[in-house]
């Protein structure tokens, strides 16, 4: 049972605690980013939906560019390239900023298609009954659209949680980073550590994906 020895060496209370500390950082960064990108993405998505000339086209172009870039590039850019033009950030701030920029673009797309999924007839009916544009948006379109947006938003949160680990490239002390520190001690630690790290990600994300699925079934 020699191959089990590394597992026994790695799965000590101290190591698990260290990994959980990293996971806490992951969750915190992900939570802050999701809140920020929900606000920014919501704003952008609504602005794109309302079709204000120039603004809508400009935002669409920006969103398309960001959505089509690798997140890793955006993280590198935020941390390494922005200081060159005088914008310097700490690691955690840079990670949150990069994730927010990327996820805002993704979320704005969810918000926009959610708003677009409301039938035109409803808007016309609301306008005909005397509501103005903002009232229609607030009382008729948004409440229905929001319900439809919840499942894709939860899925987006799952991918954000997974994407947070990309910030190891700028040494954010998250779950994967702490895992790296442990397996740097000994080569045989690699597999046990990676198994544990994957399990931690899996448990949280799996629960979230079950929630997303439950919500989807409820709607249909």
């Amino acid at each position, binding site marked *: 049972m020699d191959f089990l020895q590394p597992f026994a060496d790695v799965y000590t209370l101290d190591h698990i605690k260290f990994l959980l500390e990293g996971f806490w950082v992951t969750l915190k960064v992900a939570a802050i980013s999701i809140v920020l990108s929900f606000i920014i993405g919501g704003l952008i998505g609504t602005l794109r939906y309302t079709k204000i000339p120039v603004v809508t086209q400009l935002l669409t172009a920006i969103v*398309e*560019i960001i*959505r*089509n*870039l*690798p*997140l*890793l*590039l955006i993280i*590198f*850019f935020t941390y*390494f*390239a*922005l200081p*060159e*033009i005088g914008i310097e950030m700490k690691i955690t701030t840079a990670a949150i900023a990069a994730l927010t920029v990327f996820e805002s673009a993704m979320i704005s797309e969810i918000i926009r298609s959610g708003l677009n999924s409301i039938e035109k007839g409803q808007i016309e009916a609301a306008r005909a009954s005397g509501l103005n544009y903002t009232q229609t948006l607030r009382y008729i379109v948004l409440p229905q659209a929001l319900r439809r947006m919840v499942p894709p938003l939860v899925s987006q949160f*799952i991918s954000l949680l*997974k*994407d*947070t*680990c*990309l910030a*190891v*490239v700028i040494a954010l002390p998250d779950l*994967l980073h702490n895992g790296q520190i442990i*397996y740097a001690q000994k080569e045989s630690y*690699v*597999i046990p550590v*990676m198994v544990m*790290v*994957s399990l931690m*990600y*899996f448990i949280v*994300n*799996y629960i979230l*994906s079950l929630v997303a699925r439950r919500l989807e079934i409820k709607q249909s």
Partner: protein
Amino acid sequence: MEYFLEGLRVTVLTSLIALLCSFILGTIIAVMRIAPIKPLNWLGSIYVEFIRNIPVLVVVFFTYLAGSFSGMVAGTIGLTIYTAAFISEAIRAGILSVPKGQMEAARSTGLCYGQAMRLIILPQAIKIVIPPLGNQFLNLVKNSSLLAVVAGGDLMYQGDLISAMTYVTFDTYIFVALFYLVLTIPLSIGVGYLEKRLARSN
């Protein structure tokens, strides 16, 4: 410039290889999950659920550190393992969208399960599968940037090299971004077009 072109070559090559391999692996897993054999169903489901819920970087690190491959090979294997889970979901949805009567009719004319799947069901499923497959390819091109973390020699990696050598980070990364956009924007327009066409044909 040579560095960039070399990186572009590696990015395109690994994305294409990973797409092909994960299409094959994904089809096998999708059929496993649908086949009327319970243990195979479970195995397929466990694979998909597990891989889909862990970060792709973890998968890539795992293949890089656990095996003795070069960064490029390990990265391609990692991307394949990860993408196959998503592609198998798309293919499964495609197979399930083919009416059940087709399978029953094929079986009653004397084809075995494997033949019916291969000759009757899969060709019909492919139409529905193509747009999500395009989306996965788009993700794959973006995810291939992870090769940079395991020294895979891709576009991102070359960009890092250049910025480390010249100390010009801002312009270098903008340049890398442009290269990625040249690859991804046409893809995303193409996928959008296919999705619209599919929606119309239904």
